[in-house]
């Protein structure tokens, strides 16, 4: 069945229940909404990626004129091709905001929670299709506003993705804190509403709509991860909302929540008794759970993909659930590790050091479980599997440096240097991006009914992994030499001059990484239209989504809902004809289900 046939249908009978609008635009179907999130996320990510190449050019060749910079930024922000320092900060800010929130929160959770929750728990759709649609459109609106803010006369928000006041509160402090910052706050407010509506829906769906036999201990780890992620978001995003609202009040109505004793632009300001530290606490109370809101879905997707392609049960299923829960709980009591040097009571710093280092334990357990899953496996290297293994590597490489940052005493020397930038890009950015690609390659057949090309997928994978490490591995050393982040150029310090060739190297890798993504875009859109038609269960997987027909239908299963008889990880179970046993296959006489 081709799309054109559908289109013809619509022309023929306009009063058809499903109009173009209700099917492709204001759709309430989880599968369509998942695709909408994915494509919107990809679009935003392309903007974010372009921005990073622009500021990397400035860092590698500071002060030199480049036609590309002038082309993208115009005469105002890149006169004669030399980037303006305010624009440098603006690009970094919006790049961070887009990547953290729009790609790796909405893009990742939005895509895979919507696609997989109903499919993998055996539900016909989300609990509330309307709220689901609302969640997407709020996200779309917030994306539009964020993009519009790029064209504001005084520039977009520039105070860093963490938007600490007073810098973000006072237009006198930097041009980006004018209208650009207002739009940032409006956009983020919509974004938070979208996340919360979405998250509530995910939780309700998972709790209430599991099909018969789908007990909590038979849920695929993807669903566990998405459930806990949604709970994290629901508990922490409201705090960011209050932080943003209070900032909006300080900016627009003269309140003093975050501001006090400020003299700027020749004037003593009339703010009294506020504290910027309050904002930091509120921000990181979301901010730290947020990094796990990004990471947990990544861990969930890769757990599933690794088990499927290792043809082996995920090792320590219950321990994996346990560590997801432990990480989630701990992630609420570690936020202070971003604030060791704010003047916070040193004793409080000690407490946060302790709790932060505790998180390393469940994280380590997860790594060991991944590795052991590969032990005596029968590994099939699909592109999704390659990206998942890439994530195992990046999660280890980046997580380990967290141990240094967690120690308040060591953080003194590396806080806010490039060491932090290297740490979180590898452990969070790179890992989650790897997992997201893995998810797209793996579930593309489920989303579009066609297969993506494997060879291109493999090339894309190696280009991404190598250039990603090429950017971020050397970067640690910048931080260890004491080079601060968010510097327009390092050329003002003779001490940092010897790093100029490293900056060039990192920029070249960053450009290659960016170009490599076009291989993916090509593969994605080409396969969507011309890829070979997918078989029903291309990866010979156990989970329920692969028992639905390839063509998308309302309600997912043509007849009754499937009934679940076993956990999702019966791969290579002894005594079975095949090396996989779908969850809908009843247990045999005397067969034990689950871990044993």
């Amino acid at each position: 069945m081709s799309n054109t046939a559908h289109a013809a249908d619509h022309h023929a009978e306009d009063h058809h229940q499903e109009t173009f609008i209700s099917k492709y635009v204001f759709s309430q179907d989880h599968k369509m909404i998942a695709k909408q999130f994915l494509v919107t996320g990809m679009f935003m990510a392309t903007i974010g990626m372009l921005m990073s190449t622009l500021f990397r050019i400035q860092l590698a060749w500071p002060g030199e004129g480049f036609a590309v910079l002038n082309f993208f930024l115009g005469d105002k922000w890149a006169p004669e091709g030399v980037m303006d320092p305010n624009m440098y900060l603006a690009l970094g800010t919006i790049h961070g905001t887009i990547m953290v929130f729009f790609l790796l929160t909405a893009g990742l959770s939005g895509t895979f929670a919507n696609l997989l929750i109903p499919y993998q728990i055996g539900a016909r759709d989300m609990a509330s299709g309307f709220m689901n649609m609302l969640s997407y459109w709020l996200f779309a609106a917030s994306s539009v506003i964020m993009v519009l803010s790029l064209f504001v006369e005084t520039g977009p928000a520039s105070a860093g993705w963490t938007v600490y006041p007073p810098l973000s509160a006072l237009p006198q402090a930097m041009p980006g804190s004018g209208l650009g910052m207002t739009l940032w706050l409006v956009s983020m407010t919509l974004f938070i509403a979208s996340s919360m509506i979405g998250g509530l829906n995910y939780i309700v769906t998972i709790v209430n709509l599991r099909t018969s036999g789908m007990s909590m201990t038979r849920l695929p780890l993807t669903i566990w991860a998405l459930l806990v992620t949604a709970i994290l978001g629901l508990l922490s995003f409201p705090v960011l909302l209050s932080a943003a609202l209070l900032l909006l009040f300080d900016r627009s109505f003269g309140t003093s929540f975050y501001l006090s004793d400020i003299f700027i632009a020749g004037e003593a300001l009339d703010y009294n008794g506020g504290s910027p530290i309050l904002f930091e606490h509120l921000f990181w109370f979301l901010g730290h759970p947020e990094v796990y809101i990004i990471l947990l879905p990544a861990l969930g997707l890769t757990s599933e993909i690794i088990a499927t392609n290792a043809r082996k049960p995920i090792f320590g299923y219950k321990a994996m659930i346990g560590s997801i829960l432990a990480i989630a709980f701990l992630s609420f009591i570690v936020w202070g590790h971003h604030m060791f040097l704010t003047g916070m009571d040193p004793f409080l710093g000690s407490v946060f050091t302790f709790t932060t280092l505790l998180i390393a334990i469940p994280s380590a357990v997860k790594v060991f479980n991944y590795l052991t899953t590969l032990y005596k496996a029968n590994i099939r290297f699909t592109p999704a599997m390659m990206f998942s293994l890439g994530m195992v590597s990046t999660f280890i490489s980046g997580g380990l440096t967290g141990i240094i940052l967690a120690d308040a005493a060591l953080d003194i020397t590396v806080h806010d240097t490039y060491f932090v930038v290297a740490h979180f890009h590898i452990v969070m950015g790179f890992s989650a991006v790897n997992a997201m690609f893995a998810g797209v390659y793996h579930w593309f057949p489920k989303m579009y009914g066609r297969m993506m090309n494997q060879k291109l997928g493999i090339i894309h994978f190696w280009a991404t992994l190598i250039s990603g490490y090429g950017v971020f591995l050397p970067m640690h050393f910048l931080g260890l030499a004491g080079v601060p982040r968010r510097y327009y150029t390092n050329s003002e310090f003779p001490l940092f001059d010897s790093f100029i060739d490293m900056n060039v190297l990192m920029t070249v890798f960053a450009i290659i990484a960016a170009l490599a993504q076009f291989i993916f875009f090509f593969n994605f859109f080409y396969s969507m239209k011309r890829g070979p038609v997918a078989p029903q269960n291309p990866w010979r997987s156990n989970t329920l989504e692969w028992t639905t027909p390839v063509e998308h239908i309302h309600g997912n299963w043509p007849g009754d809902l499937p009934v679940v008889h076993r956990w999702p990880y019966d791969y290579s179970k002894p005594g079975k004809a095949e090396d996989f046993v779908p969850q809908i296959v009843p247990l045999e006489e005397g067969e034990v289900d689950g871990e044993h």
Partner: protein
Amino acid sequence: MGFLLGFAATLLAVVLIVQIIRVFELTSKLSGNDQSKVSFKDNRTRAFSWLLFMIWYFALFIWVVQKWGPLVLPEAASVHGETIDFLFNLNWVIILIAFIITHLVLITFILRYYARPGSKAEFITHNNKLEMIWTVVPAAVLAVIIIYGLKTWDEYNGDVAGDAINIELYAKQFDWTARFAGDDDQLGKANFNFINTSNPLGLVTEQTIKIRIQELNDQIAELKEELNHVPKDGLKESQKLAAIHHKETQLSKIHAFRRNNELAKNAAKDDKLVKVEFHIPVGRQVNFSMRSQDVIHSAFMPHFRAQMNCVPGMVTRMRFTPTITTAEMRRKTGNPEFDYLLLCNKVCGAAHYNMQMNVIVDTPEDYAKWLAEQTTFNAKLMATLGLSETDNQLAQNIQ
């Protein structure tokens, strides 16, 4: 040169992509189109590509360590910094061991267990003993790091020594000022309501009180004057009224200062303000207090392993005892141009990247000499105002 390099890289990548797409279209026509299977041959190639990757990854790591390792911060130049460095090295050892072992295990399993004709996976779901071991071992290692780390942190936050030198670091967009106590060994009071061009730190002395009172009175008078003469304009008028109100509030605060701080108000008079570069003596604790005029900054002195944010509306503190003079460090690093640095390490606006100061660690004698050469705040203030009789004039105006 740089441009060429970037251009060449871009060009290369574009050519690469075009070629890849060509090859892709050809091969996908040639080979079958089943994208859900991985042939054993491809599977083997992909498994071994992981080996190549691991070799590359470790090689990159070694190369980077060799090339840029020597450029990391030199040995700590403060007492607590030495403890920090020890802890840092301990952490590195643990991290590297964990990094190498896990990656070796990863590549071993990949090479050992990739699917090949007739191969099968074993059904292993969990192993309580193993899981217990790998929970307890990291926990024990972390316990060591935590205990040692907290001890080091406590040392950094230790008590102020009796003979510590008090220095204030004052941050504003986009420079630093260091303030040393004068002969009274006391840093005088400061308040943001006193800030003006002749007194950027808002120090409170007899003179600055008078100057500010006069300045504000003048401004208020001017605004009132304007209100009477300028034609009515709703918006402007309300703005002016607000400005008058704001300045009157400031004035009353300054008067309050005057009443409440009789004793302290002259301590700032002999304070010494320096920019661009400041000196500290080796072997004596320096006790910094930090303020900011406008946005958050961060006083970062990487060589001393010291950092603390400067937050408007509050005073933050840090202290350390330098152990190596600048001259000695120049010898040790073999860099005659070496200087200790104070950097701003919290994004604070357009020129954040260039908000710096040099720190010179002197012998105690040189330090005393240097400090004696610095002029006091009051002397500078009088010089900017022109005359010492300004003092009297001001006094009269205020009565």
